[in-house]
């Protein structure tokens, strides 16, 4: 039996919103440490990995490991019925057919309850090793989203060059080219606006902007975003959530620009 109570429905709403444009169906794997999710997009070039630790819920109870196979579009429909400030409770049997969602309004005594049919999803789980990245860049999540959106107007891919001077996002398209460079920056009053670059060696990689823009839908979840790059490995875009929960996206770099 699974019972997980979230103080704010908002969190799950935003997570699902951020993922639903990348994957269609996925399993929410629940065990005693929390709710985890790993899924790839249709082309298998991007991967999303989410971990909502048990501490994010109050209370959290999961007697047996269960995989909740959900269609994210359907889940979105149900979550739309929840107010942002509602208390959300997820409930499921040990071998569930449905996921039960209860929304409690904290202000009024409104209580809504939904059952969402589950599906069997065949998914392969990939083991993601801990990697020492050559470059780790933290920046405001809105800044990253703005860069991606701006550059996508010009081109479909962006080159990210990290050096000790800063990080440069550049693109070249049919109508012209453009580049945004960020230097390390620290704001004492608003630490969330800091730009930090940790570098062991310079890196330059090219990525699909469509995918990056897609990842940026998670910007609402966290004020800052962490980009981790190394040559020859996927880019990691990480949004830290409360506690040690996280939402991570991986994207394969474009190799050999032969267009």
């Amino acid at each position, binding site marked *: 039996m699974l019972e997980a109570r979230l103080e704010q429905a908002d969190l799950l709403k935003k997570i699902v919103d951020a993922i*639903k*444009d*990348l*994957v*269609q*169906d996925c399993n929410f794997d629940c065990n005693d440490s929390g709710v985890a999710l790993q899924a*790839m*997009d*249709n*082309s*298998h*070039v*991007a*991967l999303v990995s989410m971990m909502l630790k048990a501490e994010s819920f109050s209370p959290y109870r999961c007697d047996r490991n269960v995989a909740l196979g959900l*269609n*994210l*579009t*359907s889940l*979105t429909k149900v979550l739309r019925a929840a107010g942002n400030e509602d208390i959300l409770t997820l409930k499921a049997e040990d071998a569930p057919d449905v996921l039960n969602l209860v929304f409690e309004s904290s202000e009024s005594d409104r209580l809504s309850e939904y059952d969402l049919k589950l599906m069997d999803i065949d998914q*392969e*789980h*990939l*083991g*993601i*090793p801990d990697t020492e990245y050559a470059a780790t860049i933290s920046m405001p999540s809105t800044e990253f989203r703005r860069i991606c959106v701006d550059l996508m107007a010009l081109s*479909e891919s962006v080159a990210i060059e990290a050096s000790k001077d800063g990080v440069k996002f550049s693109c070249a398209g049919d109508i012209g080219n453009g580049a945004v460079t960020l230097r390390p920056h620290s704001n004492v009053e608003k630490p969330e606006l800091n730009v930090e670059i940790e570098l062991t060696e310079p890196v330059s990689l090219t990525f*699909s902007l*469509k*995918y990056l823009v*897609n990842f940026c*839908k998670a910007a609402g979840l966290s004020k800052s975003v962490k980009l981790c790059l190394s040559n020859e*490995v*996927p880019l990691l875009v990480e949004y830290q959530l409360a506690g040690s929960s996280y939402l991570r996206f*991986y994207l*394969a*770099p*474009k*190799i*050999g*620009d*032969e*267009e």
Partner: protein
Amino acid sequence: MKTRGRPSTKAKEAKFETETSTAPKTQLGPDSANPPQLFILPQNLSNEARIATLQNPRYANDSRYLICPENGFYEFTKVAAPKTSPRSWLLSASQSSEDRDDVKEPNAKRRKPSGYVTKNANMLVATAIDPLFIILPALTPLATSKGSEAPKKLFLSGDDYIEKIAATSSQFSGFSRMKSIRDLLEERMAAVCDTVEAGDENMYRLNEEKLLGELLKKAKIVCEKGLPPSMEEKLVRKALDVPVLSIKREESSTHELAKEEDAADTPDTQTSVSTSTSTTTSFSEASTAVTSFSENLTESKSEAVPPITAPEGVADLLRLRTALFLICAAYLGPHVAESVMKLAASSTTVDFAPLETHLAHLAKLRQDALASRSFGDFSRKRALAVEDGETRAEKKRKEDEEEKRKKANESRGVKALKKVNVTGMKKMSDFFKKK
């Protein structure tokens, strides 16, 4: 072809001089590894008669023949129910002739459950075959190597030829010592061979002219009795059809009596006159028409048959040639058949020239008609399309529905990502190992 069933020797009066004899004692229990088979065997077989493996004159593979020292050779024709409508024989011992005749049979034995249900309703009918065809492979050895001329034909004694057959079939060697069998074969050899006397022995060498003569004799008998309706329809009537009148639409038969060969479906050549041009196709056509004989029989009978419009004698010539092709296709090795056909074309015994000219004339007419006709006439194709069009539409509808359902649950973002150019991007599984 399995030939486990041994014919019962007790004769039973039956129509058409044949006698049904079931396989021996039936077995019960789990699937027999060697199930009984049903045979229709000729009457009055001698006790010496056996089923033996001989070389098939046409395909040069091993086939089973029934050999009777008194009555000669028989080949087996398999009559089977189509695979689509499974049938079986129920063989019951209490019904067999022995039991009925023999009243003194101990009761205990009769009460013993003794029935067998065969897996399929096959029936093997033994029909007489000219021993000529059995000896023919020995008379016509294949060229030893490609390109070289056919081996020089030598006069050999009848014994030598018979030994040749015995060499390919160990089961025949027992028969090859029987005088009646030797006489039978030598007699037939004499009909198609040049002979010389050497001492007290006759020596034989194949004469193709004589062989053709023999075959034509057989073909004429076939024609006199009338070709099977399906052959008459497909190979004679259709070949002589004058194109303008050939709009008549045929009912394609749905009930298919499946024979071993499913070749019955080979497209018939309405527009090409392959009979005159390529011998090989017409061979197969001839055999095809025969296999599909039974399916068309009922229909063509009921049809009012319009007279064939062709110069006098041409239709008979075509029938004769069709019969000849059929014999060649069924019983002669390809190399023999080829030389026989060549010979037939230039033969003086039967002049096929009027037929050739008429067919050429028809071919030209047909070509003209085809050219003048609009391309809209695909009646044959359409008939086919309508048939499986329904099932196809249904299938498509189901697929569409499923896809639609899937699409409905697909978010806009997922759809958009499908269009993204992912060239140069490796799959995630290339970076991360599967758990």
